[in-house]
């Protein structure tokens, strides 16, 4: 898992590259929490265009981050999910709390 980020116009863009499963979940949680802990943005976009695999562990990771950022009133959006990630997101209702943007 590789995580890149940039802030542009008060938006934190986070690019996840690689595989998000139980093995990479811990690193992903810690890294995202570090990035999300900075107060230089008012919304977050998680870009999944380079995520090659994700199972339901990824849902747990994303929902965990959503709960933390909800306390700060910072919304999170999902961008560029794969067909399979999309299937899991729709199955779990993730888009109801982290809407997809195009």
């Amino acid at each position, binding site marked *: 898992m590789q995580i890149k980020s940039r802030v542009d116009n008060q938006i934190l863009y986070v690019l996840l590259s690689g595989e998000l*499963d*139980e093995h990479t979940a811990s690193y992903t949680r810690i890294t995202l929490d570090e990035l999300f802990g900075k107060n230089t943005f008012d919304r977050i976009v998680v870009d999944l265009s380079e995520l090659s695999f994700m199972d339901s562990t990824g849902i747990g990771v994303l929902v965990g981050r959503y709960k933390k950022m909800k306390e700060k009133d910072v919304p999170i959006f999902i961008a560029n999910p794969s067909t399979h990630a999309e299937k*899991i997101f729709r199955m779990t209702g993730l888009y109801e709390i982290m809407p997809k943007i195009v």
Partner: protein
Amino acid sequence: MKYSNFMEVSFKAMSVNEGFARVCVASFCVQLNPSVDEITDIKTAVSEAVTNCVVHAYPTSVKGDVVLRCELEGNNVSITVTDRGVGIKDINKAREPFYTSKPSSERSGMGFTVMESFMDDVQVTSNSFGTTVKMTKKLASVADVEVG
């Protein structure tokens, strides 16, 4: 006569082996000419089953083994994931969407639901000596290899 083949591997119930398990099954199934979508369905279901072994089967620091078997018959794929861990106390409860026995660990509780959605059939048997998850999926394509 229907084409048939099988493979079986075992590995330690460690998260680092999840990627290996996914690639192993995907590579084996390639002989049936699956679509990319079918392969991703299978990889995701295998990942969920193996994750359950890694997270739940062996609660102590001593990790046991996971046996992964894949059988091909015609265009049917059958995958069994077996551990020799503590077992699942209530299988029906465990299969409910969003149920997790570890809510504090940010678990989605969607593992079995994902397996059921991506495969045609999922059967779970469990006792205090371990758990077996058997998943089957019929592929649209057929093998292009000769029976032999």
